[in-house]
């Protein structure tokens, strides 16, 4: 296991602990917000998604070198994710209506949010080739296997759309 895995697994665990502290219903609100953020990012930054051409057009206004598209996209996406996580966790937040909670599901929801948040940042930093020069190949087998299972690597935009709609329905049903 290398430095990237150690740090991101720790962040993931911390999100689990935060989940227990905040409770299930608040965590589900954060899950919804993070899924919306991922949907937006997938729609715009994934080359197979319908919004990618618009994104490239927008980028070309500010970035002249096409080789810099991916790093710039990754940095913007990471900042956007941090902003969305901030909105989801700080102050008055979207909360699912519900009474009671149990620590097991709160922990699970926290871990799910950690996977969505930390996993997506990992995905974009990996795509950008780890800017800053502190991290570089060779990566461990654990890294190369996990990177294939990060949220944005496995969830296409249409599946994220289904998940967002599902969360909305669950919010209304409660």
């Amino acid at each position, binding site marked *: 296991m290398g430095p990237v895995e150690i740090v991101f697994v720790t962040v993931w665990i911390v999100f689990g602990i*935060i989940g227990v502290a905040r409770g299930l219903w608040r965590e589900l609100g954060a899950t919804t917000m993070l899924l919306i953020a991922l949907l937006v990012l997938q729609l715009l930054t994934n080359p197979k998604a319908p919004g990618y051409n618009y994104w490239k057009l927008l980028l070309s206004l500010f970035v002249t070198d096409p080789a810099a598209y991916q790093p710039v996209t990754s940095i913007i996406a990471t900042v956007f994710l941090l902003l969305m996580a901030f909105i989801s966790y700080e102050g008055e937040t979207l909360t699912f209506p519900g009474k009671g909670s*149990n620590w097991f599901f709160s922990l699970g929801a926290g871990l799910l949010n950690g996977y969505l948040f930390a996993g997506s940042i990992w995905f974009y930093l990996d795509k950008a080739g780890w800017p800053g020069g502190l991290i570089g190949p060779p990566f461990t087998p654990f890294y190369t296997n996990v990177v294939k299972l990060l949220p944005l690597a496995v969830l296409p935009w249409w599946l994220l759309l289904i998940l967002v709609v599902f969360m909305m329905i669950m919010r209304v049903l409660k």
Partner: protein
Amino acid sequence: MFTFIIVVVAAVMTFFAVIGFLRVVRASVIILILLTTSLALLQAFGPRLIAIINRLWQFFMGGGLNALAGDGGRSLSEALSQPVKPPIDPNAPATFYLLTFYFIVLVALLIGSLKPFLLSGRFSFTGLLVGLINGYIVAAYSIAVLFPEFAVLPVPLPVKGMTPATPPQGLPLPGTEIVAARLLQFLDNLGSSPSAHFVVAGLIIVFIVLATRLSARKG
């Protein structure tokens, strides 16, 4: 041993993250500023600090105070030229640097626990993020000194004599451990499967349904 290192890193980062989460973000930012400032000072003035401490030590142990008072019959230059073993080896300053760093960490934690920074009734996500960075810094420098062969975490400010010049790129999971090998195999199979996205989305949906239904029933 490597598992122990991971546990130490996770514990230190979690500790600082929880502190950041429970207190407002100002506490974590103050801690971060103190940590980075102390590291920058160690990077720039570390050898000079060691020289001063060693010189002071030699002064006191060689009877410098008596020489100053003029009652030992010894001149100041004699006192300073006495052969006294220095307390800090300038060629191996890592332990001294780490202890200095820990002292700053302790001071930073105490400052962070002052009344203006204490919990004001609301958890802080930005405090959590800054706390994670603080925890990472403390863990990375601790491992660089205490377990240099496992110093895989890159450090933001290399300090000569404290951090390795060329850190190891990464350590593979021990291949002999059956659980680790099976986990890797499972991740590889899942990641390579064309239905991975359905599996992940399905797991999320099942979890949400179970969590909302079963928790509501308990409430």
